[in-house]
């Protein structure tokens, strides 16, 4: 029986393995990693040294990759799971819980975050390693809405102005004035129409206070 050619891992790995410091040599390294891999599968989120967590991450990803690809009936995969997961309940968890969860994943199965340093100076970087789709609150708040920050407001206004200008150039090349343009703009269906909707939506939402203060080009589009 054979295992398949592994698909590409979806995160950056180091070109060489790290020799985790252990008096037992390479076998000791594997034993350390066994514990970490088991802990990640069990608790789904752990805190560890950066180097160890990063090293263990590859093994977890590969293990899940194999499990998702081959399922529990594939003997080498089962052997692999049996070797890495010392607690045999976790083998069940791998195939019964994690495989369905990660069936359609196209990105990495795990994520890793550096922890802030408590003290400056000689540092031992710590990291949080977690399986995606766990039940805990997010480590870093994602879906963080940044549409309304000052920078993005300024840029989106600049974007609108730029699109307007491009459109005006295009129209002038066709000898159509902006005034004539009027209603057909949506019908022409170029990149501008989307941008305009975007701009309008935003002005309505948050700039209610300054309708009169709008730039001249904005008033033209409104007309």
């Amino acid at each position: 029986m054979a295992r398949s050619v592994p698909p590409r891992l979806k995160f950056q790995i180091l070109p060489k393995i790290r020799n985790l410091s252990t008096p037992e040599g390479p076998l000791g390294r594997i034993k350390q990693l066994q514990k970490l891999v088991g802990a990640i599968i069990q608790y789904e989120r752990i805190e560890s040294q950066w180097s160890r967590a990063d090293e263990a991450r590859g093994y977890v990803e590969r293990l899940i990759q194999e499990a998702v690809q081959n399922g529990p009936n594939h003997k080498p995969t089962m052997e692999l799971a049996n070797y890495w997961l010392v607690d045999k309940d976790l083998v069940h968890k791998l195939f019964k819980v994690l495989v369905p969860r990660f069936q359609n994943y196209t990105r990495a199965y795990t994520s890793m975050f550096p922890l802030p340093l408590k003290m400056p100076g000689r540092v031992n970087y710590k990291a949080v390693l977690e399986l995606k789709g766990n039940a805990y609150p997010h480590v870093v708040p994602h879906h963080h809405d940044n549409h309304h920050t000052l920078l993005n407001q300024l840029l989106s206004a600049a974007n609108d102005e730029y699109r307007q200008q491009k459109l005006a150039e295009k129209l002038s090349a066709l000898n159509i004035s902006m005034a004539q343009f009027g209603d057909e703009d949506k019908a022409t269906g170029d990149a501008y129409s989307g941008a305009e909707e975007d701009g309008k939506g935003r002005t309505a939402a948050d700039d209610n206070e300054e309708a009169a203060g709008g730039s001249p080009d904005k008033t033209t589009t409104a007309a």
Partner: protein
Amino acid sequence: MAASIALARQITRVNINNTKICRLSTVCTDGAFCNASLKRYSDVAPSRSDPEPDVVESHNETLSNAQAHYRYIFPEILPNPDSTRRNKVCEMLERNDMMNRRSVLEIPEFYVGSILAVTASDKYAAGNTSRFVGICIDRGGCGLRAWFILRNVIDDQGIEIMYEMYSPMIREIQMLKLEKRLDESLLYLRDAPNEYSTFDFDMAEVPHVAGDHVPINPLKVKLRSRPWLERYERQDLKGVEDLGLAQKFYDRAKQLATPWEKYDIMKQYRATVTAEDQDEVFRDIHEKQQQIEQARIVRRRRKKLQSNR
């Protein structure tokens, strides 16, 4: 179209033959999983003759059968998996050179254990060519560096010649007998009696239908007694008979064994070209390979017609 049907048929045939293969407790003898030049993880390497459903079929639907077959035909087409040395442009230029050479010289599908005849240009030989027949005892190298070693015994003198696969000095590579052996490196034949590596220079070509299953020769070699060139008791060889050593040798071998490497999935991963990258390579060469195949068929037909006349 015909070719792909033939290949599909061949894959089913592989599955039919599973029972036999299991009995032989075979491991693969090709270097498809890891690159030929690197240490191979024999127990994790896939084989065309594996009882498991074809990995490529089941997981890379987008890759055609013909393309999936390439990794067995020419494993050297895959780049060196060392990520610090990978470069797409360099790999592509090298691949172009390889395919150009293949369009001129027909390099047959062969494995360690196959018997080949190589005709090479030799300024000093009679007729400016020299022909050597022998069993392939090892092959390796990525890209244009690919090589293989042929071994034969002439006048009770063991002789080996290493050939570079893409060297323009090679005039012809003739496949005399396409088969695999139980191991992926037969360097132990150097320590076996001469009869195991003696082959007739006028050996007739054993016909092999293209796309047919590659037979595995289950021959087990009885080595000469020590001293040897290598410590074979440490190598987990399948194709040798009992070595007949004292227990202390096996104890030491056990001491030095690294059974965990079988499960070191990241070490294997780093020594592998990933499935995506392999697909990319095979898709890239597919068109050129089709042309080469066509040209070969035409050439054979013409030859046949001429011989019939």
